[in-house]
């Protein structure tokens, strides 16, 4: 499997010649000294992101996503490694990097007592636009992100979704080549989240490269063209969401027999012995099977249960998910990586 991984990333590298890469990251690392000792937040990350891509950075809280992003946006000097962002080295040409990137941080960064329009005009002025240019661009963005209803009200009166839109607008005032977003949809309801995804896709359509971090599986699956899964400061796998799932995850069948019909462990062993079952685990009252091809396996499983005379309460088949990918690579479920419940 390891070989497969490295071959795949070689292929990805070959398909994007260096001059066209929006991001080239080599061996980037950062550690922090705390009272308890040194914490290696980022332990040598290698990545390439092509121009015009939406690239996702998926990982649990504390995996090193934000630290990486803060290094790439010149907010934090790296301890080692190198990174070219939009063609400029973050260590030697931070000013060029700043001119070419936009950044929407986790807290957002809207000046809350100021109005949306004031925020946008100031931002434009800081990127060297004249008063007229900044006002025109602000008006354009207010249109584009549908802020006009509240553009002249203080940002502290905005709803979460409205403020997020203003903050995205702030990030693109100067038409950056690369837009970085740190957990952009955290705290948004599903409708606002979908709305933001659409706007980011529209932005990519204009050629902007988008690099975002997320800990939402659904978001990592739906939005990025490619993604990297990061855990404990290192990248554990990289590819398109589809590739990752095909390569590293399998379909799962979840069987819940009627209580006390037959010892679960006995049934699990029976099922695990079947040719089409890769893995069988007991999960509470149920048995979870990893299978190669669900449409082939499911009828066979049902037949087996019937011939054994095991009454079933529920049985379900689900497509491979990024959570399975994460589970296979790290031994933990991403859903629980912050909670420590499963695995």
């Amino acid at each position, binding site marked *: 499997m390891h070989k497969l991984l490295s071959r795949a990333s070689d292929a990805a590298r070959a398909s994007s010649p260096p001059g066209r890469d929006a991001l080239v990251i080599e061996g980037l690392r950062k550690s922090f000294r705390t009272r308890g000792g040194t914490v290696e937040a980022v332990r040598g990350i290698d990545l390439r992101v092509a121009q015009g891509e939406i690239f996702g950075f998926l990982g649990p809280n504390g995996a090193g996503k934000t630290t990486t992003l803060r290094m790439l*946006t*010149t*907010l*934090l*000097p790296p301890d080692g490694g190198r990174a070219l962002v939009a063609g400029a080295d973050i260590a030697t040409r931070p*000013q060029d990097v*700043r*001119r070419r*990137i*936009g*950044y929407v*941080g*986790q*807290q*957002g*960064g*809207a*000046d*809350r*007592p*100021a109005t949306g329009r*004031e925020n946008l005009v*100031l*931002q434009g*002025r*800081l*990127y*060297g636009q004249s008063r007229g240019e900044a006002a025109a661009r602000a008006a354009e963005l207010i249109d584009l992100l549908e802020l006009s209803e509240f553009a002249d009200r203080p940002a502290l009166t905005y709803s979460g979704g409205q403020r997020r839109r203003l903050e995205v607008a*702030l990030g693109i005032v100067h038409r950056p080549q690369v837009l970085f977003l740190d957990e952009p949809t955290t705290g948004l309801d599903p409708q606002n989240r979908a709305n933001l995804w659409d706007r980011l896709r529209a932005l990519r359509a204009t050629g902007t490269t988008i690099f975002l971090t997320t800990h939402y599986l659904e978001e990592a699956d739906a939005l990025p063209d490619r993604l990297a899964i990061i855990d404990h400061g290192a990248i554990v796998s990289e590819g398109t969401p589809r590739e990752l799932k095909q390569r590293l995850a399998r379909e799962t069948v979840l069987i819940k027999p009627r209580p006390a019909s037959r010892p679960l462990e006995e049934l699990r062993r029976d099922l695990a012995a079947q040719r089409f079952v890769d893995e069988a685990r007991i999960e509470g009252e149920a048995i979870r099977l990893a299978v190669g091809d669900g449409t082939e396996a499911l009828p066979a499983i049902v037949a087996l249960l019937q011939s054994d005379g095991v009454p079933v309460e529920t049985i379900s088949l689900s497509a491979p998910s990024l959570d399975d990918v994460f589970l296979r690579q790290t031994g933990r479920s991403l859903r629980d990586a912050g909670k420590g419940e499963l695995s």
Partner: protein
Amino acid sequence: MKLITDVWVLMVRKLRETLRQPVWVVMNLFFPLVLLALFAPLLHSLVGGPGFTRGSVLDVFVPGILVMLAYTSVSSAGWFLLTELDSGVIERLRVTPVSRFALLMGGILRDVLAMIVPALVLIAIALPFGFHPRWAGIAVLVALLALVTVATSAASNALALILRRVESLTAVTNGTLFPLLFLSGMLLPLALAPGWMRVVGHFNPLYYVVEASRDLAVGTVTSAAVGEAFLVMGGVTVVATSWATHVYRKAVA
């Protein structure tokens, strides 16, 4: 030029922040006015005594109040820094190509302006009641007060970054206010104080400023007190701003 534009737009941003909270501005002026109306009249019997050898009561009292204004107008500056760190504004500004110097200067210029305007208002109000300032002296005094404002603002920002909580910052600011005021001779000249208070007062930078402010108000620009005040405040400003810069780098980077 880009740098000048940057400083300008950032100063305007901060000025808007001040003007959006007019209560803040009014309250800054309110306390000095209360002192002028309700405290200064108590001093009339002291004229001719220690500390009141020159000019009218207000010639002694108003300069001290101006020093207080320069101090209190920014002694809560760190509060704004904490809210801006929280909302991510500072991070957002740091990712733009704007120079770090402009980020700093925008705030400082606002602080100084937000001190000078109420100070001039206070002087204007005091004029008909018997304050007789010499304008050359006042000009030099404003420069000295600007140092007080810059140093206080820097120290408040540094404290905010260390304490990290608005409540703690407020406690420290309020707790230190009166010792600093009384030990500077702002309200009543330290010439009236017992020996030990005068000794302690010499460790308070504001004491030198208050002494100089009284010379400057009556037009004595070249006294030893004025030289001392600039020396002390210059030193304090350098220390406070380097401290703030150091803490800021550590906290934000």
